[in-house]
């Protein structure tokens, strides 16, 4: 049984890591996905995992006109949305004592403002009974030195799921947050601003902090997102699903 047969899904931040793994799983479950990303080359390459059932739209979630373009494409191609995985996020190191205004703004522009409008602008196309999944993070409840802006932005994301559950309940649209723990994605090395040595150290340290003793694989996070996207989770709304190997649970 394919759990997403014929569904139309939008995934922001779909070029790599968790977003790309989720796109692959969704397509495997029978969905057609529209993936977005800021870098055209990476996005196009990412989409080559399948010959059909994937559409790419280059854009930045923190730019409202890019979101308008995204949903114009979705509307023209599919007419509606069943599933939205608001996954695009950014997190760079910025210790309290030295973090700049630009660091703070960039983090909140992508993770909070970008996600807010990603969902708002999807609503006119959303089918009643659909599923929205917001990518939060275990850091929404953990202290993570050097990443306070990131952690706070992810706590905001978790909060959105509560209010939006109520705002969208009459349309039977479920809204859930999903909080991955440390995951084996390229992001740690490429986007956090850590040196390769620091990134390696951080990865080892994360693994030691996880009761399961390792980082998650993108496919494992994607499996949980697929569960939340499908009717398998038809009585789940407003939750924060921790997929963290126990990191924030013990």
């Amino acid at each position, binding site marked *: 049984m394919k759990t997403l047969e014929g569904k139309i899904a939008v995934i922001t931040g779909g070029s790599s890591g968790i977003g790309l793994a989720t796109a692959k799983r969704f397509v495997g479950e029978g969905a057609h996905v529209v993936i977005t990303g800021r870098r055209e080359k990476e996005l196009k390459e990412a989409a080559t995992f399948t010959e059909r059932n994937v559409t790419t739209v280059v854009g930045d979630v923190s730019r409202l006109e890019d979101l308008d373009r995204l949903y114009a494409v979705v509307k023209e191609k599919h007419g509606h949305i069943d599933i939205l995985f608001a996954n695009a996020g950014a997190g760079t190191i910025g210790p309290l004592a030295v973090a700049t205004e630009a660091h703070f703004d960039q983090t909140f522009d992508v993770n909070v403002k970008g996600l807010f409008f990603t969902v708002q602008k999807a609503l006119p196309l959303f089918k009643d009974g659909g599923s929205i999944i917001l990518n939060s993070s275990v850091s929404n409840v953990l202290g993570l030195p050097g990443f306070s802006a990131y952690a706070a932005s992810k706590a905001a994301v978790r909060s959105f799921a509560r209010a939006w*559950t109520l705002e969208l309940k009459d349309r039977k649209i479920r809204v859930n947050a999903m909080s991955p723990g440390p995951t084996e994605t390229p992001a740690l090395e490429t986007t956090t601003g850590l040196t390769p040595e620091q990134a390696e150290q951080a990865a080892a340290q994360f693994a030691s902090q996880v009761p*399961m003793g390792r980082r998650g694989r993108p496919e494992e996070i994607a499996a949980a997102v697929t569960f939340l996207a499908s009717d398998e989770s038809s009585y789940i709304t*407003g939750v924060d699903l921790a997929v963290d190997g126990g990191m924030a649970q013990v």
Partner: protein
Amino acid sequence: MTRLSGKTAVITGGATGIGLAAAKRFIEEGAFVFIFGRRQEALDAAVAELGPNARAVMGSVSDLADLDRLYTAVKAERGTLDIVFANAGAGSVAKLGEITAEHIDETFDTNVKGTIFTVQKALPLMGKGGSIILTGSSAGTTGAPGMTAYSASKAAVRNLARTWAEDLKGTGIRVNVLSPGATATELAKAALGEEGQKAYAAMTPLQRMADPAEIGAVAAFLASSDSSFMTASEVAVDGGLAQL
């Protein structure tokens, strides 16, 4: 989907309600299921419904000798065990001021002590890739009149998964809590009556009670490798009841 193909599962409180719904789902996904419950008649009816991949063992989770008989039967027929759904639970109403020692003992014997020994006695049969699911409740995080013992016992269950994730480190066995909200089991429908069911539906953001099959679907997710990076988590299946 046959995500549980070849797996062996134990479900306590498996003759009716959520346990039975999970048993159906596990078997659909390819598992062999032992259901455990106190009433032979209900067990017989359940096995008749579940078919050839189900067995029943009669007993109470609060009786350690009964649990030994359960796992002896599992070992004899299957050798090993992959999935434990520690689901048996009990709850009755007593307001602060009216609580008796018997009321507390009865509730905690089943929900806490029973859960602990259901899992402890399963461990010798379990190994890497094993999944333990504990039935919690939205009552474990909310306040409801007259629910002192039940709510506290379910809060205790939620904690068991936190501690056990640490105790089970290195074994490859995961443990998670599934916390249902108001679920339309036969037992709950009879206990709540029409008015009570309406009241729960109105309180719940999804505006209805759960079908037991919806809880069974989540148990199957937690039992399967689709949740392979989840341990010590609580999955609220409550229509948003305790989330907002």
